């Protein structure tokens, strides 16, 4: 298998030479992943686009790692010649930090950035565009953040049809029929 991953490994070599990568690996054929500091974002994107011909900006995504207090932002590029998807990952603090705006490199990045700004509340330095992209009059915490609990918000905001209050839980039904006492520490393993 290794010889089929030649071009992927080569790409990784080139990037390693040029940038200080925090990590980098070939995920599988046609997928290469590198992790970098967020100051390096613009240089590496420009390098990939202009020098390596990764001219297609496929995707940009954000993942909330709330336990670490970080957002992970992923830029995914595609080279029509090499036919490789290059995943460039970086992490940024959930509060107080921002990422550089890249919509001068690729115009469509503007859409992704506006969405991430709206859904995660992650600011992009120098991003121009309507504040409201998908939501309207949203005044809660940005909804895609993991600390936004959607079902709680729903039960406060919207209605639920009545008539279902007589529903029973099977576990409780069985517990009620016997003299079994479920200790508290075991309850988290019950079916939810």
């Amino acid at each position, binding site marked *: 298998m290794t010889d089929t991953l030649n071009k992927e490994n080569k790409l990784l070599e080139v990037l390693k030479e040029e940038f200080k990568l925090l990590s980098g690996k070939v995920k599988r054929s046609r997928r290469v992943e590198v992790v970098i500091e967020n100051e390096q974002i613009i240089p590496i994107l420009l390098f990939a686009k202009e020098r390596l011909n990764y001219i297609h900006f496929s995707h940009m995504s954000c993942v909330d790692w709330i336990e670490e207090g970080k957002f992970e932002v992923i830029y995914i590029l595609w080279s029509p010649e090499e036919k490789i998807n290059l995943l460039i990952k970086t992490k940024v603090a959930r509060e107080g930090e921002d990422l550089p705006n890249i919509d001068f490199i690729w115009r469509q990045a503007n859409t992704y950035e506006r969405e991430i700004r709206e859904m995660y509340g992650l600011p992009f330095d120098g991003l121009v565009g309507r504040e409201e992209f998908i939501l309207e009059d949203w005044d809660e915490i940005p909804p895609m953040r993991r600390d936004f609990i959607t079902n709680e918000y729903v039960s406060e905001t919207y209605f639920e049809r009545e*008539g279902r209050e007589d529903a029973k839980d099977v576990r409780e039904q069985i517990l009620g029929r016997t*003299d079994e006492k479920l200790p508290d520490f075991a309850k988290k393993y019950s*079916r939810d």
Partner: protein
Amino acid sequence: MSFFNLKGILSPVTALKQFGKKPHTVGFPEVSIEASDRYRGLHFNDLDACIGCGNCSTICMNNAIDMIQLDGIEGEKGDSGLRPRVDNGRCCWCALCVEVCPTGSLNLTKEYNFVSTDASDFLWTPGLSNKDKKDKISFVSDKETSLTEYTRVPMRELDGMERIKSFAEAVLGYNEEEARREASRCISCSLCTESCPDHMHIPEYINAIASGNDADALRIIYDNNPLPEMCGKVCTRRCEDVCAISVRGEAVAIRWLKRYATETAKNADIIKEIVNPEIREANGLNVSVIGAGPSGLTVAYYLALRGYNVTIYEAKAKAGGMTYYGIPKYRLPEESLEKQVGYIQSIGVKINFNTRVGKDISFNEIYEKSDAVFMGVGYEKPWTLGITGEDLEGSLQAVTYLDAINSGKEINIGDKVAVIGGGNVAIDAARVARRKGADVTIVYRRRIEDMPADWEEIEGAEDEGVHIMQQGIPLEIVGKNGKVTGLKIAHAEMIPDPNGGRPRPKQIEGSEEILEMTAVIGAIGQEGDYSFLPEEIMKQLKIERGRFVVNEGGQTNLSKIFAGGDSVNKTADAISAIADGFRAVKAIDKFLNK
């Protein structure tokens, strides 16, 4: 392109040739198209086949399915008595509920027209509101496509011919990967807990194992069972009989999972470290327990945790009662019991070994110095076969035989042995005799499928080369010079019971034959031996058909005396004894803290 493009104008006109063709328009409402044979329409639930496990309600991410009580459907063991109700204002017709239904009772139909002016109409009970739609069922999930895993992770065992060479444990137990895989088959419906006499928290500890938390599993298990490793090896596991998955497949191996969880703690200290029980301050009350069998140990363990001063009087040299002396070591190794008993002793339970009540210490002495007495004395006196020749040398009872082997004594049985009976004890005796090198035949009055023994035990015996003679009625033990030389039997045919009971064996005339034997082991049952009780207590105590009469807490008519185990309940297995003990603990605690 020229301005005037004749082809461009005329081509579309060719559409006119469709004129007069039969339209493919659907007539409505006269002829409505029937949905396909796999259409995912409205639900249909076979209310009789449904066991109310609630798995449909759990998988539904739309919260569309509620479990509700319906008129005329009562819960029983293996049936929660609840049935799903669907909110079609939530249902997305994905049919995941069908895919996970372990019994296959919930299906989707071809019906899809559901139009109403009233939004509350969309809350309905499948199978009740659409009784007549059974023939419209379209989307079903059979055993092959269902997401319920019907096949159990196989248990690794020693090979049959390897097993008979020694008393090494035959079942090897799950390793971690197998246990996780098996545990993840469980759908956590909790129907099993009702049928367990001790009501162990089965879904919880299985879930703990599945999520990789063995320590929590052990803690949950020790919540109401102080001898879980013993149960994990030899329990009669009624829980698995009612497992929701067993309706269409193999039940979750609850017993083996419990065994896995308990075996992660290698010795008594580790158990203590993991379970880390809260032991209450001593309250100065004394409780005596007669017999260190499962019920006695249970009472002792949980009362000791509650701060009582507990002393056990055990006639024999080892604790465990029947589980030590009646169960062969290849099923329950000695170390395993010693580990568990060691843990029970480590929290402050005193066991006086080799102290037979009525001989080494009088019952009255115990009775006087204790605030409560628990009798977990069991059934040790075997029944005899009641046929001629039982006084011959080589005719013996299974319990006596097992007791002797487990105590390290040898009994000469020769090389051709008949075991009479079809219960677990018979199989145990047969397999032990096999390990002693004999050629063993089990003689049973009915058919193999009628045997009360576990099917795994029967299979294990067959693997080891034990012959099973079904429909054989023992008539006489034949002997010469005071020694057994053979067993006279008659063959039987099965007569269906006119009252609908199980078929009875009837002797076929003239089918008698004599099998050559060097020993005959009877294994048809035991009874209690209450000779240790003083006469005046015996007079007062209520005993019916050889069993103490007790209330639900195990209290006899003498309020200070409690009893449990085989000498109280008819099921006569270890887990019932533990359950008796657990109930008695609560009753004793309540009785003494009035």
